[in-house]
């Protein structure tokens, strides 16, 4: 066994997986990764099940050090500068840390959450089939709380498998798609239009429980108290002050504010990765379209292994490079997109 030690880490970082399903009827929060596709991508790179537990790293930087042997990991999700002992590491690739080497991850450059998957997975005691941290209920393993410097994971020694990269399609862009309801009839047409036609920003006070939306106040038809009913990931509820909240993975299982719309499954991760302050819009789609997109999203996760490539084949992603430069970040070619310059020995 090797160890992977958290040498430093910022807030909003915790172990997450596909979530804790089956006990919402008892009030048990689901939790799980904010961006499931990125979780699945990181896991696929190191040969884990797509929704296995990995480290969800919040917007700040983090460093991880291998001890007692080599550790193979992969990163996916919000792009960051990354290196192992000074050797640059591209997003969506695997990399092996030799004993005592440190993986350094910078701040997220756009987006919020990056996933660090560990070959062989994270060892812990599952509760309701999940290691996901739910700090409020004291659940999660090996640590039932956000990660802190000094925490460590017992991990399998690196297998020495060749390093891989994932050739991912260009991420979706455009408005965040929603299905209206379940309580859209608690709002008149003018307020539904205001919700759909306005520009929104995510408040800096958002967290894994909910994303608070800044924009015009949405008014209710009959007041803001409804009888509590069930919630889902992406429920957009409108409390008394008219500022909508998109419920995220640490949501309560029930809530008593009218829900004007629900983010489609395929776009929940995109919403999760929208940085605070970035303007975006919603777009209503039909149930048929939303379900079609949900099926494609599930298929995209299942087919990730087909997109694995050897890391030593150079693929210069001009688009990613140009996007990164347009965004005004000082980046080197090596950390923008999928260009892996060094082949592991």
């Amino acid at each position, binding site marked *: 066994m090797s160890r992977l030690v958290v040498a430093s880490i910022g807030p909003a970082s915790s172990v997450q997986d596909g979530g804790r*399903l*089956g*006990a*919402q*009827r*008892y*009030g*048990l*929060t689901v939790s799980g990764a904010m961006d499931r596709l990125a979780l699945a991508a990181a896991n696929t790179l190191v040969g884990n099940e797509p929704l296995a537990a990995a480290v969800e790293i919040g917007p700040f930087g983090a460093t991880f050090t291998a001890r007692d042997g080599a550790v193979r990991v992969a990163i996916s999700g919000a792009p960051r500068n990354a290196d192992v002992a000074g050797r640059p590491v591209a997003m969506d690739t695997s990399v092996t840390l030799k004993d005592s080497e440190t993986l350094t991850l910078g701040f997220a450059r756009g987006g919020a959450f990056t996933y660090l998957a560990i070959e062989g997975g994270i060892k812990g005691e599952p*509760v309701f089939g999940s290691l996901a941290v739910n700090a*409020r*209920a*004291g*659940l999660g393993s090996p640590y039932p709380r956000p990660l802190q410097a000094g925490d460590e994971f017992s991990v399998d020694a690196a297998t020495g498998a060749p390093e891989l990269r994932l050739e991912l399609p260009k991420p979706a862009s455009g408005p965040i798609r929603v*299905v*209206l*309801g*379940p*309580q859209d009839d608690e709002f008149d047409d003018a307020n539904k239009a205001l919700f759909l036609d306005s520009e929104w920003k995510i408040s800096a006070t958002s967290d894994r429980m909910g994303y608070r939306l800044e924009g015009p106040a949405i008014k209710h038809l009959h007041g803001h108290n*409804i*009888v*509590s*009913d*069930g*919630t*889902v*990931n*992406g*429920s957009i509820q409108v409390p008394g002050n008219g500022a909508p909240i998109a419920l995220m993975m640490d949501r*309560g*299982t*029930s809530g008593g504010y009218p*829900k004007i719309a*629900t*983010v*489609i*499954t395929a776009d929940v991760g995109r919403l999760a990765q929208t940085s605070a302050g970035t303007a975006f819009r919603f777009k209503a789609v039909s*149930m*048929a379209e*939303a*379900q079609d*997109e*949900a*099926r494609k999203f*599930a298929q995209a996760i299942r087919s990730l292994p087909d997109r694995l490539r050897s890391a030593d084949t150079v693929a210069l992603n001009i688009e990613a490079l140009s996007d990164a430069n347009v965004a005004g970040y000082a980046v080197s070619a090596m950390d923008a997109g999928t260009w892996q310059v060094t082949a592991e020995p």
Partner: protein
Amino acid sequence: MAATLPPPRLLPSGDSAVAVEFSRTIDDAANQRVLALDKALAASPIDGITETVPTYRSLLVHYDPGRISFDALGEKILPIATQPLPPVTKARRWRIPVAYGGEHGIDLEDVAKALNTTPDDIVARHVAADYKVAMIGFTPGWSYLSGLDKSLHMSRRQNPRLLTPAGTISIGGIQAGIQCLAAPSGWHLLGRTPVRTYQLHRNPTFLTEPGDHVTFFAIDHKTFEEQDRAAEAGEIIAEQVVA
């Protein structure tokens, strides 16, 4: 053949869940239909349903759109949801001890004042009622009860408290509640129970189920301390009656 009941509304909750809504308000008849549908779906599962969450007036049905579409699921649920209710079967009843007032029920005196009566009278009315677990939600084990004495209906606090203790027994609006974990609350705190409705490493992890009946009885604060220690060690404490 018995006449069928009026159909519920099928409210889309995104692409992977549907709220089967029997009423817009808190209504015991609607809650009975929610629980009956929940039971029926558990007894003969529909392929594609992943989880159900009963609430006061609706059953939230989570499903996998890769296995069943919204329309196909609705067509399967409606005939079940409009069936006449099955005869009432034996319900499980929990007798739950409560230490009322003082540090454990900091709102008891204010509630008594607001209702022009004494704390003892509030306790008497609270223990006299026969409650039913209408739903569990918000945080693990938080049991929302119907059946609160009408004379105890009062609006929630203007300023919700950011933290209320584990085991809090409270009332809010027309509802009563058993709260398991420490949590924010805008309800009026009458007392605390040593009973854990949720305890991770105990069997069962969750004590109460939607549909269970609940009554309360008063204990003194010294008994609370003793029972609280026993509960922490894994004892259930609540008395179960099959009525």
